[in-house]
């Protein structure tokens, strides 16, 4: 009854006190600065947080809440199957029941109200002074107070790790779920820093705070910091596009998709759009503040939705999160959903921070005495363990239970969990290799142009194939899976093989280009429908019969490899290798590799510093690719004809341009590639500015491009850019030399990058599509196109300076719009 009394008087007081302001207050979100709110409610519109109409309706209940503030919070998990009978311990009946008599106003509530606000002010003050006032943290402290508190405390995360006291930051109780806003504020803090050391400190301190309060949430927060939802090999993906997010955003704040899209264009980041989205829709009740666990669980739910209406369900999950998000939460929520966090937090930094945090939180054991700097050592351990077992679900619990010094023992290479493949550093020539590998024994292997694969064979006969990015590719290569048991020797019970899967023509015994490999179906491949065969080129062995080999030298691993498998041409071969330190020999070998349709060579140390270093681009492996060689590939001159608006960092400038070459015969510009790299920020700015004046409302009739491209703006062809590319490919999208290379496919450039702007050239002097065709080797399959009657011979040689000479003698005859044309292309390029 007392409560009821309070409630009604509370209501009365406020009517008198604030009614003039109520309108603006209730509709806009309220200003956050605590000390001011009550007394000068001015309108500072908040984006994203919504006015809650029902709150007004609910004021009675709230008054009771205010009165109840001092009571202990309810048990952490008020659970299901509630039986709302009178057995519940606390049962204040906040809403008037039928027998209630209108209560007389009692002038107590206002008092209390003021008290509570001044209390907040006080506590804020105390914190500002660096005091350690610990609030009786509980769900009863209002979210806005908590946010205020957290906001003034969050910069503390920047403190040097050694001086940091997690108790000063945590505004939630031990064992209580970590609020999502804490993570978002930390994100904000990180995004304003550029130094890796400061960022490491912030992350480390944030993790320590979580470890000291709610270790159960550590896994979720680590995953969110890494912007992942599960280990890569589980293949769990959110699977939502911008369209779903835009829809959810529109519905969550009662705006139209058109408005959102328009703003997206202006701001270039859906996260900022979310933040700026003022809601035109009031809410019945603001949902509970988000917690890290809730967000992460919802992400996993979203990823797991599948089948009918899954997009709709995903959208509803997102909407549920968005309506509950306040302050800067929507921004980071959206970026997390897009998996574009972009705050400059690299995963390696996170791992280092995790290691350091574990040292501080260490309760289990002291660092071994022989370690000089435990922090660095711990960071190294975590990084190394993560490279061998990239599964936070295993590492984080192990860290919490057994500590960082035992991590190497508790988390080891596990069959079925792919490690990141070891990568090679690029080099420009044989001489560079010689100088880098002085006095060491090294071996050269063909670098096959296919798909890197890690094949795991379990004791029970199961085979799993993982890609370079640790995605499970088993279903994509059923032919490989079927061949494995036949290829291994009987003594082999389990293994992990590092290899390249290469498209292979078994009739002609020839390696096929990468472009052929990617024409294979990706999902649900049926054995009988496979048109492109693959051959396994094995070059490393990481695990054999229950023993990890990654700590062994390459020489040993390779011996194991050779002993464990039987070569079978066209199905399984060992990578062709020679061990030599003679420059002539290596050059001849490189030549041979290129002639055998390989990309070049990989050079590896054999018996010193030759362990397998997962996911590292190590100096112990060098690659020598024809693409990298200095003289390969002339640059080409191309004309920008269209562009795409930039997103994220490139907001306000163009993010990518569509380039075209000029076909003098047909007098048209044919799209050849999109380009987004090779620009400095200043250059991009400059180009965007100069091209902005050349924007035309619609493409010129003499532009040839594919409808699927949809650039945001088109340009008058005015500039000529010099572009360098790695290679040429057949493209269904681009239109350069269409009809020549293929009936309805054009050619495109691989990895184009801008060199400079050719001020001296007019667009019509740009490289022609015919030149494009000639200037590089061409390996498209002419026989596949029915219109073409052609003879193509293609040979390649190497000159002394490794310059790659391509000679093409071709005869193309084709029909185009009833016009017959014969072209003889003869070209020898240096």
């Amino acid at each position, binding site marked *: 009854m007392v409560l009821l009394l309070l409630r009604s008087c509370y*209501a009365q007081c406020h009517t008198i006190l604030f009614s003039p302001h109520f309108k603006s207050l209730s509709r806009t979100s309220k200003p956050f600065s605590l000390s001011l709110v009550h007394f000068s409610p001015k309108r500072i519109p908040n984006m994203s947080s919504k006015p809650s109409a029902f709150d007004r309706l609910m004021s009675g209940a709230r008054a009771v809440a205010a009165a109840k503030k001092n009571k202990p919070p309810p048990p952490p998990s008020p659970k299901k199957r509630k039986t709302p009978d009178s057995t519940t311990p606390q049962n204040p009946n906040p809403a008037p029941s039928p027998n209630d008599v209108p209560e007389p106003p009692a002038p107590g509530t206002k008092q209390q109200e003021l008290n509570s606000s001044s209390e907040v002010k006080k506590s804020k003050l105390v914190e500002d002074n660096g005091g350690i006032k610990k609030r009786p943290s509980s769900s009863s402290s209002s979210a806005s107070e908590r946010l205020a508190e957290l906001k003034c405390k969050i910069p503390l995360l920047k403190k040097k790790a050694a001086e940091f006291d997690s108790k000063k930051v945590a505004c939630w109780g031990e064992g209580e779920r970590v609020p999502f806003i804490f993570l978002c504020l930390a994100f904000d803090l990180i995004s304003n820093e550029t130094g890796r050391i400061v960022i490491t400190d912030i992350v480390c301190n944030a993790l320590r705070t979580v470890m000291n309060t709610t270790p159960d949430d550590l896994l979720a927060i680590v995953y969110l910091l890494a912007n992942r939802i599960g280990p890569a090999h589980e293949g769990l993906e959110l699977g939502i596009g911008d369209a779903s997010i835009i829809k959810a955003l529109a519905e969550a704040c009662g705006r139209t998709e058109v408005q959102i899209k328009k703003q997206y264009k202006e701001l270039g980041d859906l996260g900022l759009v979310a933040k700026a989205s003022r809601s035109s829709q009031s809410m019945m009740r603001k949902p509970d503040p988000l917690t890290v666990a809730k967000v992460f669980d919802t992400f996993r739910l979203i990823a797991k939705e599948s089948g009918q209406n899954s997009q709709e369900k995903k959208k509803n999950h997102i909407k549920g999160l968005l309506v509950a998000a306040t302050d800067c939460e929507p921004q980071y929520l959206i970026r997390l959903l897009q998996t574009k966090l972009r705050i400059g937090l690299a995963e390696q930094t996170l791992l280092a921070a995790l290691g350091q945090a574990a040292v501080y939180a260490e309760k289990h054991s002291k660092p071994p005495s022989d370690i000089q700097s435990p922090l660095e050592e711990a960071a190294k351990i975590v990084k190394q363990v993560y490279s061998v077992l990239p599964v936070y679900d295993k590492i984080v619990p192990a860290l919490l239970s057994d500590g960082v010094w035992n991590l190497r023992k508790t988390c080891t290479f596990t069959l079925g969990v792919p490690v990141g493949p070891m990568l090679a550093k690029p080099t420009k020539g044989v001489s560079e290799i010689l100088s880098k590998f002085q006095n060491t024994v090294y071996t050269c292997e063909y670098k096959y142009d296919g798909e890197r694969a890690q094949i795991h064979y379990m004791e029970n006969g199961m085979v799993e194939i993982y890609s370079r990015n640790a995605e499970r590719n088993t279903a994509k290569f059923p032919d490989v899976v079927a061949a494995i048991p036949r290829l291994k020797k009987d003594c082999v019970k389990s293994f992990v093989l590092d290899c390249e899967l290469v498209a292979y023509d078994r009739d002609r015994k020839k390696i096929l280009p990468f472009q052929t490999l990617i024409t294979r179906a990706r999902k649900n491949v049926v054995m009988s429908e496979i048109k492109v065969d693959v051959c396994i080129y094995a070059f490393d062995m990481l695990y054999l019969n229950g023993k990890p080999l990654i700590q062994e030298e390459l020489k040993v691993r390779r011996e194991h490899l050779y002993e464990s498998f039987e070569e079978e041409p066209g199905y399984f071969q060992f990578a062709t290798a020679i061990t030599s330190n003679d420059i002539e020999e290596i050059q001849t070998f490189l030549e041979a590799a290129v002639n055998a349709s390989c990309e070049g060579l990989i050079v590896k140390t054999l018996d010193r510093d030759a362990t397998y270093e997962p996911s590292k681009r190590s100096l112990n492996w060098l690659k020598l690719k024809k693409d990298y060689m200095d003289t390969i590939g002339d640059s080409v001159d191309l004309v920008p004809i269209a562009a795409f608006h930039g997103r994220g960092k490139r907001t306000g400038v163009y993010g990518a341009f569509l380039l075209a070459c000029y076909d003098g015969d047909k007098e048209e510009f044919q799209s050849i590639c999109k380009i987004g790299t090779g620009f400095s920020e200043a250059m991009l700015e400059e180009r965007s500015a100069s091209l902005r004046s050349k924007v035309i409302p619609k493409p010129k009739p003499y532009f040839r491009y594919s409808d699927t491209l949809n650039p945001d703006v088109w340009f008058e062809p005015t500039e000529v850019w010099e572009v360098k590319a790695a290679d040429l490919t057949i493209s269904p999208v681009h239109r350069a030399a269409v009809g020549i290379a293929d009936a309805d496919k054009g050619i495109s450039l691989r990895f184009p990058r801008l060199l400079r702007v050719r001020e001296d050239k007019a667009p019509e002097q740009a490289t022609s599509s015919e030149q494009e065709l000639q200037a590089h080797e061409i390996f498209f399959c002419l026989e596949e196109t029915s219109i073409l009657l052609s003879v193509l011979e293609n040979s390649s040689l190497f000159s002394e300076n490794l310059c790659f000479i391509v000679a093409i003698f071709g005869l193309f005859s084709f029909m185009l719009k009833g016009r017959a044309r014969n072209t003889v292309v003869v070209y020898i390029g240096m």
Partner: protein
Amino acid sequence: MLELRLVQGSLLKKLLEAIKDLVTDANFDCSATGFSLQAMDSSHVALVSLLLRSEAFEHYRCDRNISMGLNLSNMAKVLRCSGPDDIITLKADDGGDSLTFMFESPNQDKIADFEMKLMDIDSEHLGIPDTEYQAIVRMPSAEFARICKDLSGIGDTIAISVTKEGVKFSTRGDIGSANIVCRQNTSVDKPEDATIIEMEEPVTLTFALRYINSFTKATPLSNQVTLSLSSDLPVVVEYKIAEMGYIRFYLAPKIDEEELENMATSEARPNVETRPKAGPKPKSETETKPKKEAKPETEVIPVEEANSPEEVKPKEEAQTVVEVMDAE
């Protein structure tokens, strides 16, 4: 032990059809007073509250209060298996994890049992206080549904304004605008055709038409619909189910476009400076005053209260709610 026998089984079917698109999962609460449900849609803009009083059932046995989480679209699927005149019996054991639906054909020649698994649903129960509204419009439900459907072809918001002349529904969209005015009309042959407007003050409120349209799925439940409006409060759209209970939809209003514009201009671009301030709703306390102002006084409550004793239950739960509210 729970056993509810509803002779007019189609009622339950219609109820489910009315709410299943608005809410996906919800808890059904059974107590001595009746069978009820309260749930919000995923954006927390609308709230549905329904009640079937125990008297509505031929047999009503509910030994202890029980709350059953169900997926509503699945439940609708199950109910669609019942015939139009079937008698529906709901059965659940104490502590069980399923709910059984039994459909008996009127002449007892066919009996079907469907068992549905219950689920754990986190839901907050809101205590809904009774409020004196500035305007109450009672009109034929089919007419209201028709109006909403017509307007949704033009725009996506609906402005409902009640004046002395009558109630005006209007919308505006890309193709143009529409206004429909209904006048008070009590001189009709059948009472359910009447349009009655009780107004203390003129009110105008704007709502997302999408929600209102989804409310009108409850039209088959009742010939009349009641709209209760007060400025800045959620509208209540109520369909009374004869003497058996009701289904009420609460919908939070939209904010005026103009006001939004003002906010937009006064604010410029979101920049770092303003962000920290743009907090969550500050002091929940501040919000509360409006409602006091809106309602004349507490006196009114008992009046309304008298005819809805079932309300008690939700209120008990309101205690949990309370904290949440405050947490804002």
